[in-house]
């Protein structure tokens, strides 16, 4: 078993598509929360095979896209520090801040390096003992544990020139905010696969009990997504919501407890601002006092004013499912992947970039 081809099976997919068509009798709005789902839906042309009354709405699940404007500006300000090397995952590099982007700073001679693992960043710190190496900690529960692990490793190895800017986001509080603030009508959630591998099915228990909305965790291959859409459509039709795990080959009830333990040994929940949603209580991660020495924000304390998203940019409305990218006045006119105005057009997982790339 190779775990990819089986879940791209053409015949099985077509069978599920027929089943969905047979039971779709009314308008259904399903939000896929995760950016990797958004991309997979486009890459496999899933919207083009679903009945017209089943709408898939992209949610706030692209880590770069939900990063607040001020956080982007802070990352850029950190890059401008004398003596700093910025280590970052690739997605972030083109995101426009208020006045600049990491890519522009790089062209201006700032030392900004794309890494594939936090441990690469520690190695850079080791090789450059006279520099301050700052890792940009952007992402959900999927990446936060590895970043926490790097802090633990740096502490153990006595690497004192390694810092992390923690702008992490937690998924369950964001789901709650979507429901609480009635940002858009949602009949069911396609819950993220990667995040759920870490936090487990149980992490959504409280959310589900409170809102009783159909929720299905699923993987990223077409068969995974189609099966979850079928499952959700059945639940929505029957009015019998359940929280189900359609991704048991990767997701367990408890999740990766070792990873969450590491994450919470270094970080603790805090309130944080999400682009398009605003501040959500307990939805971010900040350093615990005993690891404060690694906190780039505390250490460098860059002076960054509050920032508004770019004028006219509808990323906020798009992240919450209120608008689709073609409804944004800047889409394809002022805002393109070559010249992005908002982060949703930058990240490969951003809804606008996915629409631009795959949508006619």
């Amino acid at each position: 078993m190779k775990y990819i081809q089986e879940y791209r099976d053409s015949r099985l997919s077509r069978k599920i598509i027929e089943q969905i068509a047979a039971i779709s009798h009314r308008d259904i709005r399903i939000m896929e929360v995760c950016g990797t789902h958004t991309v997979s839906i486009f890459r496999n042309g899933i919207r083009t095979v679903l009945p017209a009354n089943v709408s898939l709405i992209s949610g706030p699940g692209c880590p770069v896209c939900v990063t607040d404007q001020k956080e982007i500006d802070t990352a850029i300000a950190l890059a401008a520090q004398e003596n700093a090397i910025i280590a970052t995952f690739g997605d972030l590099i083109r995101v426009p801040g208020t006045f600049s982007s990491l890519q522009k700073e790089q062209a201006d001679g700032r030392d900004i390096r794309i890494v594939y693992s936090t441990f690469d960043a520690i190695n850079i710190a080791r090789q450059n003992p006279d520099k301050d190496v700052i890792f940009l900690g952007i992402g959900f529960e999927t990446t936060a544990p590895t970043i926490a692990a790097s802090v633990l490793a740096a502490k153990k190895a006595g690497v004192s020139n390694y810092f992390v800017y923690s702008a992490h986001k937690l998924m369950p509080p964001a789901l709650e905010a979507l429901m609480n603030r009635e940002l858009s009508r949602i009949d069911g959630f396609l819950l993220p696969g990667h995040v759920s591998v870490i936090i487990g099915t149980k992490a959504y228990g409280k959310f589900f009990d409170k809102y009783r909305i159909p929720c299905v965790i699923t993987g990223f291959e077409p068969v995974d997504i189609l099966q979850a859409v079928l499952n959700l459509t059945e639940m929505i039709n029957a009015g019998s919501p359940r929280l189900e795990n359609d991704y048991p080959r990767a997701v367990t009830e408890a999740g990766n407890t070792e990873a969450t333990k590491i994450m919470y040994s270094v970080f603790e929940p805090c309130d944080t601002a999400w682009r398009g949603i605003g501040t959500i209580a307990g939805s971010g991660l900040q350093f615990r006092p005993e690891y404060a020495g690694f906190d780039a924000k505390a250490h460098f304390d860059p002076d960054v004013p509050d920032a508004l998203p770019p004028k006219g940019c509808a990323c906020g409305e798009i992240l919450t499912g209120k608008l689709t990218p073609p409804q944004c006045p800047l889409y394809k006119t002022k805002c393109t992947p070559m010249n992005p105005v908002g982060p949703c057009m930058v990240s490969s997982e951003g809804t606008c970039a996915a629409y631009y790339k795959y949508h006619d």
Partner: protein
Amino acid sequence: MDQTRILLDHGSGGKLSNDLIAELMLPVFDNPVLAGMEDGATLDIQGCRIAFSTDSYTVEPIFFPGGNIGDLAVNGTVNDVAMCGAIPLYLSAGMIIEAGFPKADLEKILKSMGMAAKAAGVQIVTGDTKVVAQGAADKIFINTSGIGLIPEGVRISAANARPGDKIILSGTIADHGMAVLSRREGLEFESPIESDSAALNLLVGRMLDTYPDIHVLRDPTRGGVGTALNEIALHAETGIRIYEDQIPVKDSVAGICELLGFDPLYVANEGKLLAFVNGDHAETLLNLIQTDPLGKDACIIGEVVPDHSGKVIMETAIGGERIIDMLTGEQLPRIC
């Protein structure tokens, strides 16, 4: 985006590279041959049709599974000349070497260049060596140019694609890009991914001997198959339709692409070609390609269609559709 500076993305082989050429180079060098924007120039010199092409190699790391910067520099230019339908004959080689570069590595690179040239049946007949101060270049950069003769009756051009043509791909995609990337980033896998770096001129020669009326030949290097097909669709002002389940990708390559969020359709190849040929002859040509070791995994991946001019559309494995756009910049690994 900063409009005043050259960004790395301008060198990605995708849309920004094309924009840069159109904005800054075409107007200055203004001539009809260059305006054709093919892989190489096709020239009429005293009754001879000659193909002429150049390429610079800056690959990092310089040694990677399946090859090094030396054989890549030979194969790449040989292929560019071959994609004009020509028989490549002579190459030049220019080197820019950073002071302090190990002599043994240079020797190794030169040896592989020699071997690659021999295998392709071309000679490196002129060259140049410059050494720059440490930091002024990264280890070694190589430029190669090549010329070749275009046989009578051969007319290859991206503009020649026409509805009814079938598109043959000579083998698995994304091998080179992912081999280099996984070596560069120290990503280890059970079965190492090897670059497909190879000279395709002998295969092209056999194809043209048997079937001179091939419409388009293209080696999908930087920007991958996706970008190459877009360029052809734009040039020929036709639509292209491809089928996801017909495009061969090695399991190991598909796996690492999946891991990093890369689309193999946009990843570089260095030993694969796309051939556009009248649908009636596609099977015959395919069978011929498959008898060559470099074409054993060849298949027909799609066709040229009269509608959606300038656009490439892929039918996905599940029966859906998606647009294959041109790559806008380097693919970047995703966060989650």
